[in-house]
């Protein structure tokens, strides 16, 4: 493998409690190559989102990234960035789609304003320039640019999700973190969106860190997959290997719990 884009090393994250701490991520290491889709799977609460947050350094107290953890993006230590560098780093280099994209748009701001925010902060665009760029991005995700003056609640869930993705791609980031971007959507919409992302990825060449608990979907979409259990990364391999020849018991168990469309149970 050539030089990885993202390299997470020995990442350990605790949630500090009143008396005891909770280790949400335990010594996790993985790499994501440029243009690659890396999937993180595991059951609820195993620490997937915690990792995603750490990459953009979005954690707030009481989350604590333990000393010794490293997150390198393009060989730059993300954890050492100062506030200005961090501000510039966020969204330009790593953008993020959240678990509930439905709620990640500010309900009282027009869509346009939420684009403008990013474009102005990072590229210093004027309103007019930003509008142009917004239209461009919306077209990319199949949303009529005329609707940019609408408020989020006027869009359906799938549309909102696509808007978030459009905002994500507005600056052409090197990496997009997607934290269960489609859980709330039905399969048809889910499929539509993932296909769109796949196309864009091919066109724009960003890497994706893809988080979901749907293993079937993950195998379809990802190049490599990491399986998490209780904060630990228990298995990491190419998608096909995870599918065909799971090594860890937990991975096997996961597959065993999927009823398939055509047989009894998968695997």
């Amino acid at each position, binding site marked *: 493998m050539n030089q990885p884009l993202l390299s997470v090393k020995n990442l350990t994250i605790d949630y500090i409690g009143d008396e005891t701490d909770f280790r949400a991520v335990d010594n996790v290491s993985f790499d994501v190559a440029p243009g690659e889709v890396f999937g993180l799977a595991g*059951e609820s609460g195993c620490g997937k989102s915690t990792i995603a947050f750490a990459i953009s350094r979005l954690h707030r107290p009481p989350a604590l990234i333990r000393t010794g953890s490293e997150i390198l993006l393009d060989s730059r230590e993300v954890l050492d960035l100062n506030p200005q560098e961090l501000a510039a780093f966020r969204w330009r280099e790593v953008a993020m789609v959240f678990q509930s994209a439905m709620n990640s748009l500010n309900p009282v701001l027009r869509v346009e304003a939420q684009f403008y925010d990013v474009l102005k902060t990072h590229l210093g665009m004027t309103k007019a320039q930003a509008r142009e760029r917004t239209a461009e991005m919306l077209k990319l995700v*199949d949303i009529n640019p005329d609707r940019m003056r609408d408020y989020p609640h006027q869009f359906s869930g799938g549309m909102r999700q696509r808007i978030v993705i459009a905002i994500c791609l507005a600056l052409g980031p090197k990496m997009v973190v997607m934290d269960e971007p489609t859980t709330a959507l039905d*399969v*048809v919409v889910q499929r539509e969106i993932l*296909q769109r992302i*796949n196309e864009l990825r091919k066109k724009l060449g960003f890497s994706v860190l893809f988080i979901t608990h749907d293993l079937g979907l993950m195998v379809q979409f990802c190049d490599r997959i990491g399986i998490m259990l209780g904060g630990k990364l228990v298995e990491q391999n190419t998608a096909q290997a995870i599918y065909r020849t799971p090594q860890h018991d937990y991975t096997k*168990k996961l597959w065993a*719990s*999927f009823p398939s469309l055509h047989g*009894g149970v998968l695997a």
Partner: protein
Amino acid sequence: MSETILALDDATKTFGHGAATVYAARNISIALKAGRALALVGESGSGKTTCARMAMLEYLPNAGRVLFKGQPMQDAAAKEIASYRRSVQMIFQDPFASLNPAQTIAYHLKRPLQLHRPEIGKAEITATIRELLQRVKLDPDIIAPKYPHELSGGQRQRVNIARALAVKPEVIVADEPTSMLDVSVRLGVLNLLNDMKREMNLAMLYITHDIATARFVAEDIAVMYAGQIVEWGATSEVIDNPQHPYTRLLLSAVPNPDMRFEDGGSDMQPDHVDAVRSLSARTDGDLIEVTPRHFARVTAKA
């Protein structure tokens, strides 16, 4: 063929009025039979829950009937409703929300017994509760005194099932019973439902958006879109030989690890999807029996 226990007959339910009328369910006819499960699948907002609620008499259809053993239930007397309540039980989607956080598991199981099986004496209640918990493979000594938040999602859903079974129902309505559960425990719950259905000869309405689990649980399947049933028939028949474009679209969108996006898994064209949607949303046309006991809605080409 086993007897039909509960049926919706040409039931329609609307919300709002005037221009804002939403047809949550339109001319729905379904029949639940003893020992068989009917799966309702379809995208979010297609009216699945509405059907379930009508079946539960939570609200009455604006048009059409709810038939319980052939008896229309819309204007049944309170007494009949009470016996209906005892015969038709529901399992909810969210195992967190469907148990009262302020009451113990034992309480949850005790209430239906007290309400609907007065023949069970005080002393026997505890024994019955133990029995119920054991049946859903939970350890009564550990689980009964606990509060819902002390249980895992899978355990909670089992408690829900036990509660539904407590009154010895004839019909179970399960609205997405596993969608909130972790993948690893899903199958266990589905297996349990399957077993119960067989052992107790229950009629079951199984609602899901996951066609794969529908196949696992249900003998029959009905596909809904925008408040209408677009296709229904035996599960294997519908999945292997889909007739309606929306059913096909739905099947093609189901994640399939055997098909990488690169390998042609990404063949859903937006134009095609839109076309299917607008076609499926049309309200003209009828359910036509395509092959024996396999119906699909046929709409005249525009």
